[in-house]
């Protein structure tokens, strides 16, 4: 392979560099720890890719294009002939999703074992095992979503319920893997109690609360997407021209008579409209909250200012993608980018909540305080602050 070729090593380094650029996270200096951290970042990047591929499957409505699981049309999925799936409609997306998911599962096994052998901190080792448990559960949920698709469950279909759980767990799993990458970074190791500016003392609690709001928002989003229905409300910022649209039977009938769906051919229900409105109001609440905390953090400078700016930017982009999803009538690429934006927003909230919680607390001994100040100055300097 030539000097400019893409090797796995370069791929890991690139993903790691991207994450370090995004979150200003520095690698540990110990050789083993550096590579484990980079591997965790690479695993997180692959998980984000997996979320995108899964998002495409749902956006296109092709989750059932492969009717069996864990086999693919009777084949061991790894030996399913490429000629039978590459470029073949929905089979392409669904089978690719399974292959990427299997790869991520393999990466998480390696990460958990590596962490178990080399990590000093018990809670980080525990978190790596949690990641492994989640990825196994995630695979199982994906399989149940396929094989129980039409079975009745909790008043609806098992496919819908397991699909929603599968989508929601994907976001949580991504945050866990991303957190492992953060907790193995040099940046994390330099965070100390007492580094928090007094003006930011309320930030950890607010950040945790907003992160929970984002998680709730992602659960609503999963419920919306796994209705496998067209847009419940086709306009934005208004909803059918109203601040809050009517949902009486006559209105719904009139709406459904005029919907000319190409895919996802089903009627819109009152429940779907209420769900969509809840998603919008929640988005407004999250936007206001994140911008408030983000501005607070930016005022404080240092690492947390970077976090605040990234989080605020992500949420603004996310709101834009949400609006674009509606304006483009649920365009597949935009809707999938919106899913990925949600995952990154949640992860940023988790990392920020963890960082601020670690930095909160009584001031350490003078020597430690000095090193903390050095870190703050260094970080501010690296930002040009």
């Amino acid at each position, binding site marked *: 392979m030539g000097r400019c070729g893409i090797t796995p090593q370069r791929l890991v380094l690139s993903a790691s560099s991207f994450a370090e650029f995004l979150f200003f996270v520095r690698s540990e200096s110990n050789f083993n720890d550096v590579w484990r951290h980079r591997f965790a970042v690479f695993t997180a990047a692959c998980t984000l890719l997996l979320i995108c591929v899964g998002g495409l499957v749902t956006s296109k409505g*092709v989750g*059932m294009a492969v009717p069996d699981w864990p086999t693919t049309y009777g084949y061991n999925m790894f030996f399913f002939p490429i000629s039978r799936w590459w*470029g073949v409609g*929905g089979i392409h997306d669904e089978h690719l999703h399974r292959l990427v998911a299997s790869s991520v599962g393999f990466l998480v096994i390696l990460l958990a074992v590596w962490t178990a052998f080399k990590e000093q901190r018990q809670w980080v080792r525990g978190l790596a095992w949690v990641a492994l448990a989640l990825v196994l559960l995630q695979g199982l949920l994906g399989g149940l979503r396929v094989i129980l*698709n039409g079975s009745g469950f909790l008043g609806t279909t098992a496919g819908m319920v397991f699909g929603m759980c599968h989508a929601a767990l994907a976001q949580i799993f991504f945050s866990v893997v991303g957190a492992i990458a953060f907790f193995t970074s040099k940046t994390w190791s330099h965070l100390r109690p007492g580094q928090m500016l007094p003006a930011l003392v309320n930030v950890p609690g607010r950040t945790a609360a907003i992160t929970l709001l984002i998680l709730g928002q992602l659960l609503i989003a999963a419920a919306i997407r796994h209705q496998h229905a067209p847009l419940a409300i086709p306009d934005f910022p208004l909803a059918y021209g109203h601040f809050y649209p009517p949902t009486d039977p006559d209105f719904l009938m009139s709406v459904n008579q005029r919907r*000319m769906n190409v895919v996802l051919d089903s009627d819109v229900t009152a429940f779907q409209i209420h769900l969509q409105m809840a998603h919008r109001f929640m988005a407004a609440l999250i936007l206001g909250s994140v911008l408030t905390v983000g501005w607070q953090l930016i005022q404080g400078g240092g690492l947390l200012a970077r976090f605040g700016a990234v989080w605020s930017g992500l949420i603004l982009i996310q709101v834009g993608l949400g609006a674009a999803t509606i304006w483009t009538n649920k365009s597949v690429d935009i809707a999938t980018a919106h899913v990925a934006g949600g995952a990154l927003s949640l992860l940023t909230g988790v990392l920020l909540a963890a960082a601020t919680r670690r930095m909160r607390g009584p001031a350490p001994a003078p020597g430690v305080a000095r090193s903390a100040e050095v870190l703050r100055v260094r970080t501010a300097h690296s930002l040009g602050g």
Partner: protein
Amino acid sequence: MLMKTTLRFAAVSVLLAAVSTLQAGNVTGKVSLKGEAPAEKEITPLAKDPNCGKSYSKPATTRHYLVAADKGLANVFVYVKKGLAGKAFPAPAEKPLMDQKACLYQPYVMGARAGHPVMIKSSDDFMHNVNFAASKAGNDTFNFAQTKAGQVNEKTFKNVEVFAKLQCNVHPWMFGYIGVVDSPYYAVTDASGKYTIAGLADGKYTLAFIHLKAGEVLQEIEVKGGAAVNATLEVK
């Protein structure tokens, strides 16, 4: 003597024919659409699909409202909803066929009898999956693949379900709808909006007209040697 006998025989034959006409007849009519149907949309993913796109010289469109120049509405499922309780009917002579041709279900809407098999065929020489998620208790969900042209699978819907929706997820714009009912008295309107339900015995019934988009209307009818029943569905 011979002439008398012949006349008597002829008279009895005419009388029998008249009685027969009184006991069962055809219900015919036309379904019209009131209001303007929205314009159909091009199925753009179909045109982009390497297998499906080559079957079309011009873009295929959705088939939500197929309206004739005189407002006759196609693909309306018409069936006797009430008035047949307790009656048993012989098994149908033929099995209804739902085909997949050039990446569309043909017909788009059809009828079938609960408890009797339906043939599901692919005329395409590439992969389709046929996915049915039952919405009525008792009907079995299925999802199977049809990989080459000519493959036929038989499926039986045990219970009434209007409509049973068949879907291909490999080509997610493909939908076919089957009105599954428990009597042979059903029909689907043709391109001009006309329908015929044959052999319905004299009596009072409720006739249902269901369109996938325009909704449902019910009409109380009385059959006396047949009936002519028109209906109008409205886009509001």
